[in-house]
């Protein structure tokens, strides 16, 4: 040890002289690829979107400056608000149920003595790993009104066929179920990592005091898991308000616009070549997403 430090002390000044230039320049070269990609594909497009959002450009011909016209158009447009309302409704259908389910599963899986623990963990993640488009298609087939397996199962117990994807009352819950199925395993993994940080002696003490398991869950686990839970809620809120591929593949926003999420409404502006409005819509969505994140971050901040 002393050997190597003296050696290094002697060698260092000489070595540093030789590589002085590279050592100063090296970090710039190392971050250059990121900076290049960032400027070309994030900064430039963002500034372009901002400018675009004040014009009525349709992709060809001259652009006309319309000031805040696109923004006021969107904010007074029923379709825009309907998109947000649909996303909000999906949030209500997904997030509370998912958190309850994920906490129960995570608590059960946190038991080291549980048999098949490894199997359960893998089984819950399988949906998260599968490609969304593939599973969205499987959903279409499973939930088909006439030939789907779901209605066949329900038929066994005498329930008449339900138009899961063809009626506006059922389309949202069916989509919510897809999202719930696909992402719950992911939340379970996050919660499990939070649970592992809880000190086991707390439970041992509670056992000694004779507290029941359900009491322990409510009085120890849930409060100590608060931050992890809130974090999961933030992640899922952002995901739900940006939801695009699920309704795009499964329902194309229908029936009767009942599954046109905020993200899908934004995309419709592109397909109509209404680029100015689309750009303004993008910024409104960014503002919403950032506001939601900041709001949750405030909640996440420890009180003390």
């Amino acid at each position, binding site marked *: 040890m002393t050997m190597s430090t003296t050696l290094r002390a002697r060698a260092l000044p000489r070595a540093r002289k030789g*590589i002085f230039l590279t050592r100063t320049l090296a970090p710039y070269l190392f971050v250059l690829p990121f900076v290049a990609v960032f400027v070309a594909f994030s900064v430039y497009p963002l500034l*372009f979107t901002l400018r675009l959002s004040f014009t009525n450009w349709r992709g060809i011909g001259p652009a006309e400056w319309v000031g805040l016209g696109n923004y006021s158009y969107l904010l007074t447009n029923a379709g825009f608000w309907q998109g947000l309302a649909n996303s909000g409704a999906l949030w209500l259908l997904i997030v509370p149920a998912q958190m309850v389910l994920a906490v129960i599963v995570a608590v059960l899986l946190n038991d080291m003595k549980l048999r098949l623990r490894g199997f359960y963990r893998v089984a819950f993640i399988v949906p998260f790993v599968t490609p969304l488009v593939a599973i969205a298609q499987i959903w279409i087939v499973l939930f088909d009104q006439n*030939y789907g397996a779901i209605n066949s199962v329900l038929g066994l117990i005498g329930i008449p066929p339900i138009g899961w994807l063809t009626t506006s009352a059922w389309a949202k819950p069916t989509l919510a179920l897809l999202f719930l199925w696909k992402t719950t395993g992911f939340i379970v993994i996050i919660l499990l990592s939070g649970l592992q940080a809880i000190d086991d002696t707390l439970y041992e003490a509670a056992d000694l005091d004779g507290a029941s398991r359900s009491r322990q869950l409510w009085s120890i686990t849930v409060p100590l898991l608060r931050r992890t839970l809130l974090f999961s809620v933030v992640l899922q809120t952002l995901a739900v308000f940006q939801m695009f591929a699920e309704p795009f593949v499964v329902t194309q926003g229908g029936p009767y616009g009942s599954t046109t999420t905020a993200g899908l409404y934004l995309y419709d502006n592109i397909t109509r070549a209404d680029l100015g409005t689309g750009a303004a819509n993008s910024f409104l969505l960014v503002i919403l997403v950032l506001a939601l994140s900041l709001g949750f971050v405030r909640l996440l901040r420890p009180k003390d």
Partner: protein
Amino acid sequence: MTTLATSPAARLPRGPRRRRARILRNAFLLLLTGLFLAPVGWALLSAFKTPVDIIRDPLVFDPTGFTLENFLRVLRDVPIASGFLTTAIVLVLKGGMTLFFAPLAGFAFAKYEFRGKSVIFGAVLVTLMLPTIVLIIPLLLEMKELGWVDTYQALVLPGSVDAFAIFWMRQVISAVPDELLDAARVDGCSEFGIFWRVVLPVIRPGVAGLGVLTIMNIYNDFVWPVVIANSDRMATLQVVLSTLAQNITGNRIGADYATVTGELLAASSLALVPLLVLFIALQKQFIAGILAGSVKG
């Protein structure tokens, strides 16, 4: 579980009560995992049934009636092989770039002091928070200007030096002791040599986690490819799959429901299997990657 305390079971002696709770717990978990695995299992099995059987008896699986009909038809009618090829090429190029440049930038942020460092790192954080969908319109227009619509550049370059990957690698590399780097310098190692021969070997587990997460993200990526690569020649696997779904919901005239359903299940199964195999083989790295990935957003 939670009702045990007040149920009649509560009056049982401690041993049997424990056993009963354990059985209940396992029954609940088995039922739930069954529900989680059922859609994938159902699709994988049904893909081997004849189209008529799929829609006539969705719940009956008769191994003697299994056929490769759907798979053969999908390979013939749908450019799924070319979708696989495009996805594979994008995976190699984009994944390679992420796995090389992200640790490199992470190294600079973790182990060097340089002017502008905090500004550039701020840019990384901003990129992390931006929803993909916001950049779609201007990026599409940029690609049109560059003449890059339906090209590999367009599929590969945006997002190729992923901000989250940099953020993660910076954290991983911070844990590498400075003494190790200094020792390499003394031995006359160049700055890049330090990264290549000292840092990368040490952080291999972290890079493995990043690797599986990157593969999963690129393989499953859909929104950008569907906007930028719509032609048959350049469509990625996921884009090819999504066009099949549009067939079933009525855009393809003349194809009957049963045939399209069979094709759709076969195609979805083909797309599912590679990732499932990879996941089962590399569970640990996957879960590490997913956990680290959850910091995003």
